């Protein structure tokens, strides 16, 4: 484990002193952002777009990115925890997928070790059937599922991911043992989409952005969405009488062991960025829903998510201790 270099320590001390003296928002100089995923994915885009907004709003002067993908973010997190301890300029992207991934991988490092800065965006999960499917609506689907759980094959992303968790939550809601969900995991969006529109699985579950165009073109029919209220013309699961809500959120973290003041400075910097026009434009272009929750409230939220997801993963026979 790398210890704090004298230079980094001085810098940290200087910033802390400056904060204490001025008590006002001080621009963070040189931010290093760990993106625990390979370039091009959701966390990468979110991280880089946030970085752009931080620069544009003047919240930071300079920003460097470090992509370290693998094991649902566990590898990047492990490096972040080890190398950035106490560094007030270090940030890391993360999200809901990481919570499940860390539980499943029985990771030695956890999100409780890093400092919560802010929850940023969310995306909701949509349940679809191929256009030609005999399943009419959500009620019809759940009735068939209840009658014979195995007969409904659910196609989505990797086992234990957001898609699988939603299927598990729905099973629990209608009184089917989550372990009975006949879940068929696919790698990457393309394979799953092809299996769904080709009619090889009964139902598809994924983030709205993955399916939106196929719903629009009429190759898939949307049955419900995992948000609280309807999005576009897709009614939420709750509105249809199934009390299930699931947000695939993304957020940002600070290094372990930074002070309250340093945490506050980073929250301030991120908040400034999210209020800038460039961030608004990003949200619109990427179709992300803002899901702001700062600092320790965000920390409490993660703790709750950790519990909820841990329970459902255990129900799905995944992530057992």
């Amino acid at each position, binding site marked *: 484990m790398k210890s704090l270099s004298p230079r980094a320590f001085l810098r940290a001390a200087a910033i802390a002193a400056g904060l204490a003296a001025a008590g006002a928002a001080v621009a963070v100089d040189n931010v290093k952002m760990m993106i625990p995923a*390979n*370039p*091009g994915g959701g966390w*990468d*885009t979110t991280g*880089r777009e946030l970085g752009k907004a931080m620069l544009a709003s003047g919240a930071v002067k300079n920003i460097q990115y470090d*992509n*370290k*993908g*693998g*094991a649902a973010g*566990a*590898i990047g997190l*492990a490096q972040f925890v080890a190398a950035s301890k106490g560094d007030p300029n270090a940030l890391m992207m993360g999200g809901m997928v990481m919570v499940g991934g860390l539980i*499943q*991988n029985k*990771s030695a490092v956890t999100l409780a070790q890093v400092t919560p800065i802010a929850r940023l965006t969310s995306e909701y999960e949509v349940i679809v059937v191929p256009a030609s499917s005999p399943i009419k609506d959500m009620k019809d689907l759940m009735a068939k599922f209840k009658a014979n759980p*195995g*007969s409904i*094959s659910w196609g989505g992303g*990797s*086992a*234990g991911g957001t898609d*699988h968790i939603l299927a598990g939550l729905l099973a629990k809601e209608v009184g089917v043992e989550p372990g009975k969900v*006949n*879940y*068929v*995991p*696919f*790698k*990457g*969006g*393309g*394979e799953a*989409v*092809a*299996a769904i*529109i*080709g*009619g*090889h*699985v009964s139902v598809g579950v994924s983030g709205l952005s993955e399916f939106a*165009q*196929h719903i*629009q*073109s009429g190759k898939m029919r949307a049955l419900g969405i995992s948000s609280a209220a309807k999005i576009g013309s897709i009614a939420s699961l709750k509105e249809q009488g199934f009390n299930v809500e699931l947000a695939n959120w993304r957020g940002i973290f600070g290094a372990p062991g930074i002070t309250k003041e340093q945490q506050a400075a980073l929250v301030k910097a991120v908040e400034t960025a999210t209020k800038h026009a460039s961030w608004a434009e990003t949200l619109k*272009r990427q179709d992300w829903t803002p899901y702001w929750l700062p600092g320790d409230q965000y920390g409490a939220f993660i703790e709750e998510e950790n519990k909820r997801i841990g329970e459902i993963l255990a129900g799905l*026979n*995944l*992530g057992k201790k």
Partner: protein
Amino acid sequence: MDVWAQLASGFAVALTAQNLLWALVGVTLGTAVGVLPGVGPAVTVALLLPITTKVDASGALIMFAGIYYGAMYGGSTTSILLNTPGESATIVTAMEGNQMARRGRAGPALATSAIGSFVAGTLATIGLTFLSPLVVELGLKFGPPEYFALMIVAFTTVSSVLGDSTLRGMASLFLGLAIGLVGIDNQTGQARFAFGVPQLLDGIEVVTIAVGLFAVGETIYAASKLGQAKETLETLRGSVWMKAEDWRRSWKAWIRGTFIGFPFGTIPAGGAEIPTFLSYAVERKLSDRPEEFGKGAIEGVAGPEAANNASSTGAMVPLLTLGLPTSATAAILLSAFQQYGLQPGPLLFEANAALVWGLIASFYVGNVMLLVLNLPMVGLWVKLLEIPKPQLYAGILVFAAMGVYGMRQSPFDVFLLYAVGLGGFVMRRFGFPAAPVIVGMILGPLAEEQMRRALAISQGDPRIFVTHPISAALLALAVLVIVAPWAWRRFGPRARA
């Protein structure tokens, strides 16, 4: 005809000075990315995505696509010269191409791969232009049982790489199958053979093993013999260019490779590696000199190189017509479209015809550029082999380490590379072939995954593989491939002789 008019309008877009320049930048970058180890086309396009805010949509997409198929041209260069495949699709090229290079035929190997890539790229673009809707419909008929049957067909090609000793070959194959199991099992989310090492959770990259076995293992082996034997590595024998004989042996392989590669590109679980294996096996079966395979047969370079290029162009079919990415790079291209608020799919052909057809036309242009760019380089590349051996070997080791590190920026992978390299040395010393390891590693996990998916869908009923007509036909083909040669010997016209 409508398509012709559309294509003509596409060329009008692609041939503007500005878009020609973007295509040139794209294919040049792509070639460089292909040659440089560790930098893949997917990462390159991802890192260039921010330029979408400055450049217009057709220019940027033409450049990105150029990077994608340009990398397929460049990837063969290091495989042939240094035995270090930069992408998994050029592993087969390394097998036969490097053998050619060792016998002083690096020039023809590079030339047949460049011209074959051009032929395949162009033919596949013609396929993309005229057959897209048809091919996509067929591709969607493939579900897990069909894919599983396809993998079984691919497994029958293993015999072509087993080498002289079937027992040793099978040992290598099973080693590959075992390595393929490492990592989180996609179907259950449980880690297998990871021994608590987080770096192993995502599995082991095929390229790491291939470079370890081929480049590092071979280099250590060669170094261990250095000074003992006479120079075996000839820099150049005969002409740098392809002779009439080479042309005669190459052209059919190019065409067959294209026909194998293109359909694989269009299906979501195809990838570019499997068609290269299939093409290699087919060429070996059909060659009038099968004894040359493994010792530098030009067909063994020409076919697989055409196949991987055709498959990368084939991947454009589902991307453009359905918005369906079938490879990592295609997925990034999809997000490039989305940066412009464009959604690939049938609607795009109507709403943005100029853009789509401009892009398609740019493939024709880009392939010509790549040929012009790559052929004159052959003479230059061949000079690389004149470097004295100790330096060349050192260079190969550095190159291999850089490439493997570059893929995931993981020091762990570099240690793994050298561990595998030592293993490769031992295998080489005792006559175990390396190629079956790679075949097992690629096919094993795919076959397993598709089989388990199919059985999940059928709720455990294995009849799903024979009740689906495509799957049944493919399985029958696999049986035929295995049984027919034996039956022919046993009952054929010459059986009694």
